[in-house]
């Protein structure tokens, strides 16, 4: 090998002109900036698939995306209350809370440590609370009044009448609800009989909540 150093000195296994530059030429300039973010394309891209199949799948995809936002699997963190506790909090509609889960999984298939209290839907809660306080009271008279209400105000108080019917149902199944009622006692959602439709109520907590940081502006 030492002997052949002189003989085969400038013999390359590839032809030198294939490199693109000869001896003594300066190398091509090196790139100083990163390559552009959207480099111009040499060839236009192939058009997308079209057709009935694709349209159907597109509609399906949009539907799935929209509906998955409404499922209980879509988890939103509970809003931290920056203000003092208010009386109106009792009447707020259901905001997601951190310590309860909105659907009931099969706990036997999950590790025990993941077990959280399952949040009962609003309707069952209504029956539970008033039940405890009103059991000694006369239940029959209440039902008559409720039925009158139902027949008189069908449309506007549809929501209320549903809730009150559930109260009746819960009274019928009160034994089943008894153990659950103790758990739900801690629930803050109390829908006592009020004349106000809950969804109309807005305690104005959101107003001005965004501009709290900027104290220079006067708040009207």
């Amino acid at each position, binding site marked *: *090998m030492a002997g052949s150093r002189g003989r*085969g000195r*400038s*013999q*390359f*296994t*590839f*032809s030198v002109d*294939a490199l*693109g530059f000869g001896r003594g030429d300066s190398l091509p300039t090196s790139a100083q900036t990163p390559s552009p973010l959207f480099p111009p394309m*040499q*060839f236009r*891209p*192939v058009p*997308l*698939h079209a057709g009935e*199949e*694709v349209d*159907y*799948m*597109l509609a*399906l*995809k*949009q539907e*799935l*995306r929209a*509906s*998955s936002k409404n*499922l209980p*699997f*879509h*988890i*939103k*963190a509970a809003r931290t209350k920056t203000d003092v506790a208010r009386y109106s909090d009792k009447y707020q509609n259901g905001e997601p809370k*951190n*310590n309860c*889960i909105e659907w009931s*999984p*099969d706990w*036997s*298939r*999950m*590790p*025990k*440590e*993941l077990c*959280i209290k399952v949040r009962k839907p609003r309707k069952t809660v209504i029956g539970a609370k008033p039940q405890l306080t009103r059991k000694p009271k006369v239940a029959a008279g209440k039902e008559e009044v409720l039925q009158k209400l*139902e027949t008189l105000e*069908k449309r506007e108080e*549809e929501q209320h009448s549903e809730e009150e*019917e559930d109260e009746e*149902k819960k009274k019928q199944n009160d034994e089943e609800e008894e153990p659950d009622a103790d758990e739900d006692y801690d629930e803050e959602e109390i829908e006592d009989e009020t004349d106000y439709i809950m969804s109309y109520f807005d305690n104005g907590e959101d107003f001005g909540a965004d501009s709290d940081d900027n104290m220079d502006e006067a708040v009207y």
Partner: protein
Amino acid sequence: MTAQEVRLCGLLLQEHFGNVVEKVGTHLIRSGVLTLRALAHETKLPLDLVKKSLCVLVQHGMCTFGAGRRGPAGPVEYRINCEHIFHMLRYPRYIYTAKSLYGDTGELIVEEILQRGQMTMSSTVKTVADRLTHNMPEGQSMDYSEVVSAFSQLVETHFLQRCPPLASAGSSSSGAVDTPLPVATQPTEPESNPDCYKLPYINLTGQGKRRRSSEGGEAEQRAAKKARTDNSECGDDGIYWQVNFQRFHLHFRDQAIISAVSCKLDQTSSEIVRTMLRMSEVTTPAHAAFTQALSANEIFRALQSSYNIARPNLDQYLSLLVDDPMEFVGKTGDSGGGMYVVNLHRALANLARATLESVVQERFGSRSARIFRLLLRKRHLEQKQVEDFAMIPAKEAKDMLYTLLSENLVQLQEIPKTPDYAPSRTFYLYTVNQLPTARLLLQHCYKTVCNLIERRLYETKENKRLLEKSQRIEAILASLQATGAEAAQLTEVEEMITVPERQQLESLRHHINKSCTNQLLSKHESVT
């Protein structure tokens, strides 16, 4: 887990389950395996939120848990199954396949189970019957038995399978009072359960309930509520069903092969291949290299009479298929008129190669594609040889080769003549490695999907005002039409939106949506 895959998982989780689950999921993917406490500590989220997210992920089969490093007595560890998250991209395709095979009922069953992760048979049947009844005209309702029969068909063809049962740790037999409740160990593979595809016996009779908002619906609501609490009475408590993704993928693979045959040869050959694949659907294991051997007599008997293929024609078609360079069908024997198999792996490899070639052609032009195909066939070539074989002038060939090299589609192999890799005494050969290149393209696809999703989110945010306005307009239109307004009022309302803006936005979002699904489908199947 590549960076692109992690990013894609995060975006998908965010799209379907929200920001909290996304944070938990991405952190768990990056860290590998974690316990609950460690996860809560590192993500700095409240423990309850982490618990809820893990419940969601376990419910959908994306997260598995098991006894950790310290054995069954230690804390439970969780890990994420990324492949499962990628399947979320293909949900529409699964649903569409179910629809084409089993009609609307099958479609709704698969959709319900996909959205909920796992469900019992009885709850699926009830929900689907209710949904179908809702769409039917007044007075009609869907009977449970029809839904049950569609469900059984899906199970028989293995599209649905039982969720694997959890084996609880046997070591918790110690009698200590403060022993923690048995930690469920890693769920076993679903296929290892012998009852995987066995339908449970349920006594479920009735019809779908129509949800009505009027007073008359009270009785139904009451009955519906009672029915929901009576789940355990149906007899299939604890038996959950999930979608068998692998079976769907096998179905897609078969479809790809059949369409390739029909493109390359003709319709009749593709029908023959379809028959062969259908006959060996359930007998062929998932990752087999080729199907079971089928004799020509069997194929002839199984062919549908509508195709009108005579026996000698069938033999000719089969010999054509065998001689085809794509090697879809192979002949393994002569008994029974000739034993034929479908070469699954080889067909897929050839399809992948064709995909690679077409990608290079579309991105770099047909001459670069010629060089690429040359390298695929000749394996290793020097630069001079490339120029000669491809019949392209030296300067241009060099340019194209270097472009392909910089994109990493072509690799350089050095063969030294001397132990020191002196450039003057080394051969430099260009080569293409098919599998790594295919994987590279797959990563490109993931990146593209990520970019498209982010672009869609950006566009939606930018034009949120416009979108909301159009939604309000639609609502107003609907209400106006309901009250019988004049056409002039309608047009006036419609013109409130500037048409070009709306069109542009809609078309952009449509394209983005379409690209998301379509791109990933073909590429992934080719890289099996």
